[in-house]
């Protein structure tokens, strides 16, 4: 089993070229039907391998994302496994209807890799808050979001093994996350991972915010609170069982995500709680606004405070959730 090895090391951002490259190294050996569908965005992985060994499997569509999404669907219809890479605003949102019509309706085996999340150097156009919300509503789509490099690599491999459309959300622009998982971490699509059990409250986080949640736990420990963390790496389908179990244990849930709280992880969890296991809930995320540019680390920290996504904010939200639980008179499972 994986140990809760907090503060082991600060690694590179999850889903960086390093992680995807390592996974792709394995995949090109395993699958000979992988096709890269490019949108004038250099693939962060194995492009050179393909150029050298299988140039015919690079399909460059130019800056035409709508066309590229449909081309990917058609290639999948013919038995290939296309990887599309871009930003959420282009690869996903620009081609939203194309993904719906020409990929999802027929469950074509297309892997959509897109950069999402609010911290970034590229400004409001490229740093997307609504990536989770706008894709969660789409049937037949699996959404993955890795919290660290190890998970990114494992999620990437699992994504290829799964036959069907996947949106792999990559928070390239977020600060460097901790190295949370060790190599024996058993990743599975649709399974949340309980990093730590707690009895006072549970934080359900995804992506980079898992790192902030781990820091928040340290803060809360000093106040004598025992708080658990669940890493929700699959945003769709959500692991209902894990959410219900946590709700019954603590009756105080905080969700944390790098994106708008409207339509995101928080709302997904809220629906499951309301239907199955009422619990006090506080959602941490961007409050219905767009992102901004931030280049320096100090600026990114400033943005973190602005959007209320830091460890301190999560810690405050946990206390809020606990207070709500008392107010609502919700009782915990003994």
């Amino acid at each position, binding site marked *: 089993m994986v140990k809760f090895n907090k503060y082991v090391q600060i690694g590179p951002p999850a889903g960086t070229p390093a992680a995807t490259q390592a996974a792709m190294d394995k995949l090109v050996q395993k699958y000979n039907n992988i096709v890269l569908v490019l949108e004038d965005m250099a693939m962060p992985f194995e492009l050179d391998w393909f150029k050298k060994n299988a140039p015919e499997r690079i399909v460059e569509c130019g800056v*035409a994302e709508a066309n590229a999404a449909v081309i990917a669907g058609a290639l999948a219809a013919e*038995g290939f496994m296309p990887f599309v890479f871009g930003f959420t605003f282009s690869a996903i949102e620009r081609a939203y209807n194309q993904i719906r019509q020409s990929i999802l309706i027929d469950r074509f085996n297309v892997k959509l890799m897109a950069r999402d999340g609010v911290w970034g150097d590229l400004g409001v156009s490229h740093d997307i808050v609504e990536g989770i919300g706008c894709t969660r509503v789409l049937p037949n789509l699996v959404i993955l979001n890795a919290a660290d490099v190890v998970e990114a690599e494992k999620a990437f491999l699992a994504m290829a093994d799964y036959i069907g459309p996947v949106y792999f959300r990559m928070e390239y622009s977020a600060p460097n996350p901790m190295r949370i998982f060790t190599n024996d971490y058993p990743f599975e699509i649709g399974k949340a991972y309980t990093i730590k059990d707690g009895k006072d409250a549970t934080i359900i986080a995804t992506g980079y915010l898992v790192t902030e949640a781990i820091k928040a736990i340290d803060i809360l420990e000093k106040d004598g609170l025992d708080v658990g963390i669940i890493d929700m790496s699959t945003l769709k389908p959500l692991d209902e069982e894990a959410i219900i179990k946590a709700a019954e244990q603590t009756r105080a849930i905080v969700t944390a995500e790098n994106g708008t709280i409207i339509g995101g992880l928080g709302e997904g969890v809220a629906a499951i709680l309301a239907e199955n296991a009422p619990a006090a809930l506080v959602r941490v995320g961007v409050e219905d606004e767009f992102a901004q540019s931030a280049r320096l680390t100090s600026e990114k920290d400033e943005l973190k405070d602005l959007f209320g996504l830091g460890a301190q904010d999560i810690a405050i939200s946990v206390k809020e959730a606990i207070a709500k639980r008392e107010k609502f008179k919700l009782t915990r499972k003994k």
Partner: protein
Amino acid sequence: MAHSPEVIQELTDKTKIIRQNILRIFEASRMGHCGGTMSLVEIVTALYFHHLKLDPKNYDWPERDRVVLSKAHAAEAIYAVLPEIGYVPKEALDKYYCYRSPFQGHADRWCTPGIDYSGGSLGQGLSFASGMAQAEKIKTAINPPDLHVSAGNMLRSIMSFNPLYRVFCIVGDGELHEGQNWEAAMFAGKYKLDNLICIVDYNKYCISGPVEQIMPLSPLDEKFKAFGWWVKEIDGHNLTEIVDTLDLANNLYGDGKPKCIIAHTVKGYGIPVWEKVHMHYGRAEGITIALKEGREIYG
């Protein structure tokens, strides 16, 4: 290459059966995209009964020619053909628009044997067809066909060289307003998709009026030519012209050019009341009168 009058006569007889089937579909459903369906009849008849490489026993044959119906609202034209090939039972004609029917409102790959593309959201079919054509190119690059022949029959072997499959894409004129078509045209030109044949059902009318008024398309041929396509304009209701042009397009395989056949058609062709009003979608009273008229003509 001219065809014998017998072949054309046979196909003409087929169009009558297809029109009868379409009438049967509309009689059961009492509504449907009649205009764009009727304008397609000759084209799909020539494709399915003369041209396409397909296996009536296996609709999923990997080497079958693909048909991408981008104007998926005119699926009734293909629905009328499928029972004649044997992919679906003829009774399905009475189940158009129905729950669990193979004949969904718009062409649906998931529900209908013989449908290669789920359409409905216009302007994407040409991209999908280009993707399928590109897939054929990749497959052929990975597993090259055996061209090892002796010098003696070299010429014959070159002449009979064929793609693994061809992709036929049927687009409407109205949907050419969608910018994505031109992204696809650019893509097909770039990748020299000579295994792709796009047929434009140019019936000149959108839902709310003449295409040239809503958003002018002409000169359509020059638009495709500018993207590196081979283009030919034909009368889309003249079977001889359709069959000859499809043959010509086939024979040009290897020239590195995607093919576009602009078929000038009449919306609602074959039913005078529909032709007169350029009917797009028939329902209620209107369709009853038209169907009565259709039965008088086609029996």
